[in-house]
């Protein structure tokens, strides 16, 4: 755990040294934002052991130039995806066709059962739950693994990026609309307004509910983003205090505190993955069933 923090400390030390060097906050934000360069810095010196400049793929879309080149977050998102697929594959291989799970298959099955029984079946009917289970499970594991990969040294947290969480929220939004339209047809828009609303208030309520649909999605995106990035920023600044105050004695307090926050982050990742999945299921379920 301490080892995981060493590269951060050295990076901060680098940032704190001398004039013309970047400030502590510059270093901190450089570590949590996306970039075109992947650096692996030596934990004991200022040397950069490996520097990988990612390619740029400019593409013309509707008159605008959009760079589709992979960034640091894209690379670590792919890495976490590969780790996830490997994990799932190993779990399924360990299990085989047996009805009783073995080894890591237990872990994956526990989560699958939790998502099914505590999330999907509590928010939707059985048939709908079955249809949306793959999405909910993939969202849960995607968040856990991409944030989990971000906990290791020299990596980046891809879900600590507004574009990524926004895309996840957008997928939930699309599924909300799809669930509403496929279960209720165009009546979905009529049923946005709860039944029993006085006819005079109906237009107002319709607008409010329509806005609510977007705010729900927006909240989903911001909540995940803020939670994923906040822990990292706080850990960095707690360690950064050593250099901001300029005394090695601060390390006595800030390093254990950073380790505690690091452990807290593991819990936050699981909780936020649960919350995102739970709310997605809830919103999809609410769209699918008229209220």
């Amino acid at each position, binding site marked *: 755990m301490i080892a995981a923090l060493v590269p951060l400390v050295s990076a901060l030390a680098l940032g704190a040294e001398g004039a013309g060097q970047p400030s502590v906050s510059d270093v901190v*934000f450089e570590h949590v934002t996306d970039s075109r360069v992947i650096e692996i810095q030596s934990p004991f010196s200022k040397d950069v052991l490996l520097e990988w400049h990612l390619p740029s793929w400019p593409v013309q879309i509707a008159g605008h130039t959009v760079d*589709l080149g992979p*960034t640091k977050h894209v690379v670590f998102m792919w890495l976490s995806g590969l780790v996830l*697929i490997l994990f799932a594959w190993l779990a399924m291989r360990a299990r085989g066709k047996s*009805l009783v799970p073995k080894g890591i298959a237990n872990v994956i099955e526990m989560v*699958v059962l939790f998502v099914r029984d505590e999330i999907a079946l509590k928010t939707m009917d059985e048939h709908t739950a*079955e249809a949306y289970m*793959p999405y909910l499970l993939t969202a849960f594991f995607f968040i856990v693994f991409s944030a989990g990969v971000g906990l290791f040294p020299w990596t980046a947290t891809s879900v600590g990026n507004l*574009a990524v969480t926004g895309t996840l929220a957008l997928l939930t939004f699309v599924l909300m609309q799809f669930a509403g339209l496929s279960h209720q047809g165009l009546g979905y828009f009529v049923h946005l307004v709860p039944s029993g609303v006085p006819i005079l208030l109906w237009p107002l309520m319709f607008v409010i509910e329509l806005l609510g649909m977007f705010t729900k999605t927006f909240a989903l995106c911001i909540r995940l983003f803020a939670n994923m990035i906040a822990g990292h920023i706080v850990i960095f600044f707690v360690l950064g205090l050593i250099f901001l105050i300029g005394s090695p004695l601060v390390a006595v307090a800030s390093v254990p505190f950073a380790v505690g926050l690091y452990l807290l982050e593991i819990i936050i990742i699981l909780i936020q993955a649960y919350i995102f999945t739970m709310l997605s299921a809830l919103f999809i379920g609410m769209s699918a069933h008229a209220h």
Partner: protein
Amino acid sequence: MLSVIFAADLMAVQPGLVLWTVVTFVVLLVVLSKVAWKPILHLVEEREKTIHGAIEGARKDREAASALLEEQRALLATARKDSAEAVRKALADAEVARQDLVAKSRKEAEDLLARARQQIEEDKAKAQAELRGVVVDLAIEVAAKVLGDHLADATRQRALYEQYVNDLPRERRAG
């Protein structure tokens, strides 16, 4: 602080990243559905069905067993009653048979006795008759010897003696 956050591109949304997230997520969704979610959910369902079936089967078996036990118990009670009945009946039959046998043998014995008595009676009567004849003959013979030819009219004499002898026991019995 807020300016720092915006200056650091923290809130920036790059279209490329959106596209790659969609692509990555969809690929993960497809691959994991095939590799993990579908098989796991299928196995879980199958296991639930198996467990449900096993519980249901156990319940049915238990019910069948208890029904069978009840049946056996009833059967046992019937058998016990039947056997007791049979023993009782056999005892009664034996008693009846014994009594029949005893009565029959008693009757037979009595019959035998009666027949024997009758025989004796008949024999006695015969013997008496014979004896009487012999006695009369003897008496006539003796008398003839004593009286010689005095008793010429033998037939008439004989009738006389016979009458006398016949009267004799009657008087005795009466005496």
